[in-house]
């Protein structure tokens, strides 16, 4: 096992202080590798479409792509000026350039931090008075994404975090009551993509995991403890020198061991078991780790993992394209767990460029990736888009921005554990979107920054309609809609009435399914 003592573990032994230099300019450095990987993805998928007689969707329009890539990478719909600029851009590789630019933007780091915050924290944590700790975690995560910390370093430092310097990650442990079995279940699900906790009470029915695997894995978290310091804010996390876990109905301590690995774990000079775990966990020798990551990021972009759900990569749940998953896993490891590089690659693939519109009756299944999934926006994506494009408040990109109205909206709309291919909301949420204070503000003639900006006399009515479409749907009205709009506005006899109709149009578009999804 000593060969496992890779450069990573050495850094770990040094106390996780080093960080890779941030990449500056993804495509510039890795253009050749990315191009090769993109062709490989395209090849695997087009072969599978051919084999299954699937006619893939047409290539998405520039407007559709622009909205999609903004929402997926930056977490917010494109600003109106950005859509116009993108549609007018005539230079080559404009889609690739937009992908790269968004990946380097602070929006991206914020969006990833918010996304990972939801992945890491139990559903319940959000509702408890943990605001301060959640903010600390988001800030910690955001720093990782700003630096583009390689994923193995990112996870290893997360899993060894503790003490006063790491108040952010501590909430991950405290919300699981610092209980080894709960932390084992969460970390294996999130970072290995496996449901190891099914083996808590008996050997996993559908997989290779034994009860010993689960408890041997949980034993790595046996030293964890909550210190008395900072108790008001949930406490700090420390590792005690000892701390054993026992299996149910037994008093014998279980020795830590890597699940599915027969050799004993790596020695750690400081006898820190969590560090012992990360030496194996976040290494290239642990295939589950990279697979789970590429599957999760694929799922982020396509609304469906190659294995779905992304955290149930068990034996009885095979990948839709196993060879593609294998390829991306190897690629991600070769590219030294570079997340921006991985996202840039997947986003450049032919499949990601396809439209989500499909003419034929028989829409290809989601797991063919021959047509883009229509992804329901998270409440945060929806609210941020409306805030940016319609309310037009000045907003700091930082998630620190204290926005009480947004918090209320998010609390009302919060859904847990849903697929972006579902619409999780009910009648009350719909009524809240239609009649709630956010909508009132967004469509109110004086409070809506968008509507106020359209009061200017030198705009034609058609220009104003166009601006409302761009702000809500990220596209120009089509021909039919233009005619419809002309009729809609024809009944107005005064500027006041036209203003009311603009407000009505805005209300209407914000409540459409189209405004609620990423195309």
């Amino acid at each position, binding site marked *: 096992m000593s060969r496992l003592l890779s450069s990573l573990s050495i850094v770990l032994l040094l106390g996780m202080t080093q960080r890779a230099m941030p990449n500056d300019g993804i495509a510039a450095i890795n253009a050749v590798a990315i191009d090769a990987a993109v062709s490989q993805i395209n090849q695997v998928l087009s072969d599978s479409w051919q084999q299954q007689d699937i006619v893939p969707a047409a290539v998405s329009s520039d407007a559709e792509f622009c909205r999609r890539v903004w929402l997926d990478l930056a977490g917010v719909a494109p600003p109106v000026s950005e859509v116009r600029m993108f549609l007018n851009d005539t230079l080559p590789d404009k889609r690739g350039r937009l992908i790269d630019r968004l990946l380097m933007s602070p929006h991206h780091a914020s969006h990833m931090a918010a996304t990972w915050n939801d992945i890491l924290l*139990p*559903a*319940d944590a959000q*509702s*408890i008075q943990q605001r301060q700790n959640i903010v600390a975690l988001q800030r910690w995560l955001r720093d990782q994404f700003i630096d583009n910390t390689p994923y193995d370093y990112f996870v290893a430092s997360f899993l060894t975090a503790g003490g006063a310097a790491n108040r952010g990650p501590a909430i991950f442990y405290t*919300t*699981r*009551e610092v209980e080894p079995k*709960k932390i084992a*279940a*969460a970390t294996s*699900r999130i970072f290995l993509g496996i*449901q190891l906790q099914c083996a808590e009470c008996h050997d996993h029915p559908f997989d290779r995991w034994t009860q010993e695997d689960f408890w041997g894995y949980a034993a790595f978290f046996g030293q964890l403890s909550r210190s008395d310091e900072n108790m008001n804010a949930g406490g700090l996390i420390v590792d005690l020198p000892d701390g054993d876990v026992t299996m149910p109905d037994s008093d014998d301590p279980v020795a830590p061991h890597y699940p599915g690995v027969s050799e004993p774990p790596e020695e750690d000079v400081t006898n820190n078991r969590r560090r012992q775990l990360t030496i194996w966990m976040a290494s290239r020798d642990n295939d589950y780790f990279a697979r789970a990551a590429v599957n999760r990021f694929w799922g982020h972009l396509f609304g469906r993992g190659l294995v779905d*759900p992304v*955290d*149930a990569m068990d034996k009885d749940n095979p990948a839709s394209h196993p060879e593609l998953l294998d390829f991306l896993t190897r690629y991600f490891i070769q590219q030294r767990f570079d997340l921006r590089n991985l996202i840039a690659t997947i986003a450049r693939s032919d499949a990601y460029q396809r439209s*989500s*519109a*499909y*003419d034929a009756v028989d*829409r290809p299944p989601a797991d063919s990736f021959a047509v883009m*999934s*229509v*992804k*329901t926006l998270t409440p945060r994506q929806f609210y941020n888009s409306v805030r940016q494009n319609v309310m037009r408040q000045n907003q700091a990109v930082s998630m620190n921005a204290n926005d009480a109205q947004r918090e209320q909206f998010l609390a009302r*709309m*919060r*859904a*847990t*554990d*849903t697929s972006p*291919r*579902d*619409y*999780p*909301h*009910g*009648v*009350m*949420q*719909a*009524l*809240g979107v*239609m*009649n709630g204070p956010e909508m009132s503000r967004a469509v109110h003639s004086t409070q809506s920054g968008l509507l106020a900006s359209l009061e200017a006399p030198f705009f034609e009515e058609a220009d104003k309609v166009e601006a409302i479409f761009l702000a809500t749907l990220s596209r120009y009205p089509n021909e*039919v809609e233009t005619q*419809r709009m002309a009729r*809609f506005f024809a009944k107005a006899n005064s500027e006041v009435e036209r203003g*009311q109709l603009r407000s*009505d*149009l805005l*209300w*209407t*578009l914000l*409540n*459409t*399914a*189209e405004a*609620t*999804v990423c195309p």
Partner: protein
Amino acid sequence: MQFAAAGALGAGSSGLMPQIAKAAAEIKSQGRHCVLLWMSGGPSQIDTFDMKPDHANGGSLKEAATAVPGLRFSEHLPGLAKQADSLAILRGLSTKEGDHERGTVLMRTGHIPGGPVMYPSIGCSLSKELGSAEAELPSYVSIAPSAFARASIRPGFLGPKHAATSVAAAADPTGNEFARLRVDFLEQDKSVTRDRRVDRLKLWRQMQDDFAAKRGTENVLAQNTVYESALRMLDSDAKDAFDLSTESDKVRAAYGRESFGQGCLMARRLIERGVPLVEVTLGNGLAWDTHADNFAQVRRLSEQLDAGWCTLMTELRDRGLLERTTILWAGEFGRTPVINRNGGRDHFPQAFSCVLAGGGIAGGQVYGATNESGMEVSDGKMDQQDLLSTLCKALGVSPATENIAEGGRPIAIAEGESVDEVLS
């Protein structure tokens, strides 16, 4: 059952509009209802349903006889005393949470908060079982929830479509007015005329159709379905259930003028129209949190409780609906039997009372007991899971009914041992 004879005759004679009477008859054939009377702050068991007149802990409030021989409780609940044969008093509740927020989550979900699973509130689980997706009115209406309760009336892993519809209460009125109750988001922007609304919706439907024609995916179709239901509710007469101004002042006054009483009246109107689950909170904020001046406050709260609860049971019985409606009276915990130096009582989850009443309940009895000082449960000890399991059974819902939580784990609505002695 003592009120089995009321039947549909009650509905016919109570002056309801025929279609409501018809709807009420239909409900009788299938629907069950549940009313949760939530006592925010933690009501004092020893000053209400488990009095200790012979002990120093007993305090200054007096006990009185009820319609059921041997069953005694506070003299400030005279209306309930007359209907004691509909009540089953559970005196052996005991839990481990003495914090308002955590205790509220515990009592409502059956589980301590903060774990990896977001457990739904019992009201959400039950309304999911009892309700119908096609109904014009929501399946779960929560009236005047306190801030603490708001966070705990949550659908958890059932998803937001099972969330409660909340009805906000303005501050309790002074003088001869009635408390005003308002449904969140049911009021449309008044400055938008009906014509404009019609035009908006026409345009909206065109946009929806165009989009679904090429992107008729599950989420897009579901968004449309949910919106259409919401629009139906905005347009429906059923939402008149929320309008209490059509009730006579005499009826309104009988329920009590405060938000609890008016909420109980709204509960009756909602049940008449088929809503399966209604929750009414007594105690704006944490009114039952009587750390100081306990006795005067409990007396005042008991009067409100008695008027609202008692009138609700009477009116439901008159309409033949009580036998289909199970009522649970509960708060997040009880209060210390020992009186503190401020004449108050503090948080006490070790031994407290809850009450079940109405349909499915064998009334006129006490289950469980505390010892002389009220400090410990001496008989019939039960926890929140046992209580929730019992409530499920009273409503004809199997507590073992499973829903799927995060990560595909099936989780039962409640896992306690039901107290079958109080079930009819």
